[in-house]
């Protein structure tokens, strides 16, 4: 099983880099995960989304889709794509240490 080291801690991750255990995530790991995905610095707006992802996951057991983020995070879909250019739902989930959002059916 692949692992990654963030903020000095080794954590098991999936083949595409998502945390297997969201409880192992700490805030100080987020900037390092972000750099791995090509985001150099996390702004307050990034953090608003990351905090929201954690909250949604804790309540619902799955991360929100981009469309749900646009409705509920306080950040518009357009801005989400500026903050997390290669796919907001996936990237923000990865940086927030939660599983890859399940697609709808």
């Amino acid at each position, binding site marked *: 099983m692949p692992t990654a080291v963030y903020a000095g801690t080794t954590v098991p991750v999936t083949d595409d880099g998502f945390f297997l255990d969201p409880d192992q995530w700490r805030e100080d790991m987020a900037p390092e995960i972000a750099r791995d995905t090509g985001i150099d610095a996390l702004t307050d707006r990034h953090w608003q989304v990351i905090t929201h992802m954690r909250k949604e996951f804790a309540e619902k057991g799955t991360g929100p*889709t*981009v*469309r*749900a983020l646009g*409705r*509920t995070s306080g950040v518009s*879909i*357009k801005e*989400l*794509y500026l903050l997390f*250019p*290669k*796919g907001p739902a996936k990237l923000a989930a990865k940086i927030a240490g939660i599983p890859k959002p*399940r*697609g*709808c*059916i």
Partner: protein
Amino acid sequence: MKRIVVLGGGTGGTLAANRLRRDLGDEVVIEVVDQDDDHLYQPGLLFVPFGLSRPQDLVRSRPAQLHSGIAYRTAGIERVDLGAEQVLLSDGVTLAYDVLVVATGARLLPEETEGLTGPGARETVHTFYDLDGATALEGALSRFTGGRLVVNVVDMPIKCPVAPLEFCFLADWYFTERGIRDQVELIYVTPLDAAFTKPVAARTLSGLLAEKHVELVTEFNTGEVDGIGGRLVSYDGREVLFDLAVVVPLHGGAAYVDRSPGLGDEFGFVPTDKHTLQSSAAPNVFVIGDAAAVPTSKAGSVTHFEGETIARNVARFLAGDELDASFDGHTNCFIESGFGKAMLIDFNYDTEPVPGHYPASIGMPLLKQSRLNHLGKLMFGWLYWHSLLPGRDIPGLGAGMPLAGKHLHTPSAT
């Protein structure tokens, strides 16, 4: 006497009311509410643009589909008051309920995508997801003499997730019949990372798209539809050019759900236990069909298979008994593939669509084109009015997904 109010007189509301009337008889009062008298056979919409169905043949009276003894009321719904256990209608009437059945389906939200209702709508930009749209598209297709025809799903969830693929297959057939297939480029543009949500079926379906020379564009999240410039623009700045676009708009739940505190999620769908069909909002609220936020397809077959569980559980709830957690997410879809053939997929919460036969090892072929499946699809139209809506079980086809006949060890693509 206990009162059951059913919101919505479409597939789910009609078959739930009919099953409840048959099971409970005069022990309860059942009232169905809808805003008009047009019960639309939605699976027929796909065929209208190709001249294979006539719009007027798809619509019947709503109350005419209800068993005698069921009351029907034409009114808009203002909101549900969960605490007071009553529904407020737009004409000012208040309906008290002991049990509420939510069956108001999904609503199209084209205005939520930039440009989709703007210049070019009904000219270069069309949809077939409502009757007016499908009818207008028939004219547009008949005038189309060549160029880029783009079929786009804006985002999931949508009703009948295979319908946009079927549209591509039928378009390939339609332009071949007209002798201009070589003048038409067909492009399927999806937000998913493959042709379909489930890996084994996605592989078969993307093979079929390739075979029919339909280009597949994946992970495209449409941010803007430019009808004048003929462009779909994604949120991450990619563009797909079109001469004619067929767009499946965003879906949400009925508008009153948003106005009813505690009832729906951020899209207006109602959070629901996926096995009992009881809502999370209140124990005396049950949900059937597209209105429910459950992880299965929004499709008529699902609604039919849910019918047995919801009728049983409303009766059990009224009797104070424990609910039956029997709904398994069973979905059964014919996929029209053109030239008089169709494929069939059959799956549930736990088992993805795989090859084999349905309902058992002798039956209709799964995940494979055949003439028999096409006939099955046509027969479904008759069954809809005469078996599904009256709330009858179809002999030999149970509500639970059959495992017999399925090749369960087909390797998945993931």
